[in-house]
């Protein structure tokens, strides 16, 4: 089976180094403001620090995928005697909580790893070294890609009907040829 390369991007979070300053939230909302850099507002940030200072809880979490529905059960962790709030480590914008939602529209927010910048700005801004950007190449089997494509198409078919998808594909390929 053919192998293809893909780039995996990570923000490694060292919660032990976090000093709780929320600089990551500020810079994220500045970079993603519309127009760019025109304003800032941590409520719009795609990274948030779950802070409970007196319990020594500092967890920077950057936004992941939008989840249309809540999980059947919720995470609850106790680590080193500290009980973290429900779903503390989950990155989803999810109906169970108000995290990672645009304050005006309620639309989900998702980290884009600051694609237009050299590296995620929260990483650059964090002088406490709680955030580290990592990038690595991974080889994956092509079939996996194929599988992904099928899952995607199936979802679209569910939504619009298979016939409409086929018609659309036909029209798209027609216009490309033309």
């Amino acid at each position, binding site marked *: 089976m053919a192998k293809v390369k893909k780039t995996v991007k990570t923000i490694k979070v060292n919660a032990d180094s976090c000093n709780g300053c*929320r*600089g990551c939230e500020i810079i994220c909302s500045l970079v993603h*403001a519309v127009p760019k850099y025109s*304003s800032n507002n941590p409520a719009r940030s795609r990274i948030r620090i779950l802070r409970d200072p*007196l319990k020594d809880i500092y967890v920077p979490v950057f936004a992941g995928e939008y989840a249309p529905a809540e999980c059947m059960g919720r995470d609850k962790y106790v680590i080193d005697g500290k009980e973290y709030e429900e779903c503390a480590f989950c990155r989803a914008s999810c109906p169970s909580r108000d995290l990672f939602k645009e*304050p005006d529209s309620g639309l989900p927010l998702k980290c884009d790893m600051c694609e237009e910048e050299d590296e995620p700005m929260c990483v650059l801004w964090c002088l406490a070294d709680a955030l580290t950007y990592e990038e690595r190449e991974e080889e994956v089997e092509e079939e996996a890609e194929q599988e992904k494509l099928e899952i995607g198409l199936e979802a679209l078919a569910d939504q619009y009907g298979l016939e409409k998808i086929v018609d659309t594909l036909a029209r798209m390929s027609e216009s490309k040829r033309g």
Partner: protein
Amino acid sequence: MRYAETGFNLEIDLATGNIEKVETDPKLMETHLGGLGTSVKLHWDRVPPETQPFDPENLLIFSTGLFNGTPAFSANRTVVTFMSPQNELLAYPMMGGFWSAELKYAGYDKVVFRNKSPEWVYLWVHNDKVELRDASHLQGKGALETQELIKEELKEPRAQVAAIGLAGENRVFTASIEQGRSSASRLGGGAVMGDKKLKAVAVRGTKDVNLARGAEFLELMMEVREYINFRNENPIPDVMTILSGIGSPQEMLHTDEKWHTENFAWGNARLRRKGFWTKEIEESWSSTQREGIQRLISCFNCPQHCGALICYQDTPPYMAKCFGKLTYAMAAYVDNLDFAWKILYRATEYGVDSFSTPQILAFAVELYEAGILTDKDFEGCPSDNEGRFYWLLDRVARREGIGDVLADGTYYAAQRIGNGAEAYAHNTIKKHEQLPLKLGMLDPLYFLMYSTNEKISITQIEGNWPQAPFPTMEQREAFVQDWPQLPDEKWKQYLLDWEPRGEKSNPYFPTPEIASEIVDWMEMLHNIDDALCLCAGMGSFCLKPPYHIHNYPKLISAATGMDLDEAGLKKIVNRNRNLHRAYNNLKGMSRKDEKPPDDHWKYRFPELEEELITTYYKFKGWNHDGIPTKERLHELDLDYVAEELNKRGILKDGQGQEDSQDDQGEC
């Protein structure tokens, strides 16, 4: 659209419960910037000087500065202004933390409280929803406990809460306003808050703060970021550890306390213990410090680690910062840090200033030992140093027995106790307890800052100028080589010339003229920080900071859209300072009040000190009494101030600084 500021203040009438959202005049940013500057203007306009600290008319203003809520590193101070119960002057203690940014995000620059509430209340600001809520169930609760209870009852763990403890409720003159790891402590803001029956102010905001030229602002901030990194990696050599870095003194990070424990005075600002910092003490204190500190923490958007979460033995967790670590232990003559961690927790819950309060307690111990206070006053008090301090702290916070007298601070307590007690209240300026520093040789810069600054609680020189000359020329040359913060290249020579001994040393060098120049510069930096609500630890307080006179105007211009140059910025903050001074002059402050404690230095030089003050006043454009002249006020567009001073007979028509030189009799 308003940039950097929100353009709205909250006006709260505590007597009627009326709440108004008031749009502010955009011109005020051009004339006073914001923060302390615009707050002083509000006091000047609205609180007549006849007002007493506990009159309903005394305003209590919680203010953000121009940079809170923007991406400016370390813009996290809240400046609280009120007429102080300790000396009736316009006080402005500040706190770091997270409160100011939250208020900006809620959409307000200031919260202005007037009058008194009939019942205990707290204010809850959540974006456009603002309400006064019943706080009767919080009466008697600690300042930390209150913050947690309010967050819980509002179901808003992200709310930021500033609260008073029992000391504020009881109008103790050194009561603080506590918020997370920070507090606005000096000069009794907690007492004014308690007098108004305002237990807390809770804030939560999710709105935008706008920047006029965001890309430019970010670019400038990248340079600041670089410099912060550079300074964190390159501590200044040849100075004490505590002075080598940036940020507020890193006393949670550093365990080396040789400098404080040996150079500051123990007890009631009495005894310097040279040789205290032995190997055994170092080991014991370092290990207790490490045991107590769970995590080093910062304020909003600041990369430093000035604060800490303290989880020490059975003491409930609390947060601490700075010199509060040592003030109680040193005042009580207790040689271990165990006591320090424990009593600091209790003091934080009571909500008292950890600089002035320990001195009040030590003052009481001295009076007892001298027989001026008696066994009757100390009935039930343990006899050991630690026990006495806990007992006294409880009495002061609760205003019980002798504590009721002590709660007014050493100056008023001494007046009430009499019988020679006045001599023991030896460490105040303008009735406010100063840091317990007793030094040898008069230092002209420090003399001026200490005597004349409107802050009244200047702790140390608190400036960009080194606190002592470097012994060798090589060290001086190395220091001045890389000093972009200086306003003028010629100043490098002042530092090169400054010797530890001989003709060009303290007290005669820096000369009064040079000292005035340097002090004026350092004070100006403070006034800029206080208008922006930037932490002084990144600007005006420390050596070679990331913010300075050459980048402030660019940053302010990019943030606000005003086109401000260095001269323009200097003019604004000079206006703020002179307005503040004139207000204090209305309250009766003048040259007679501007002197350090008699025993502050061992070697004093009365003639030189007079010359220093006179030269500095002249430099500032103030008359012989320390009142801004009509000409100076005119230059600063403060003619209305001159008129008021004139009307009240504080300035006389045509009286410039030259005329008043002859008026030597008054001081």
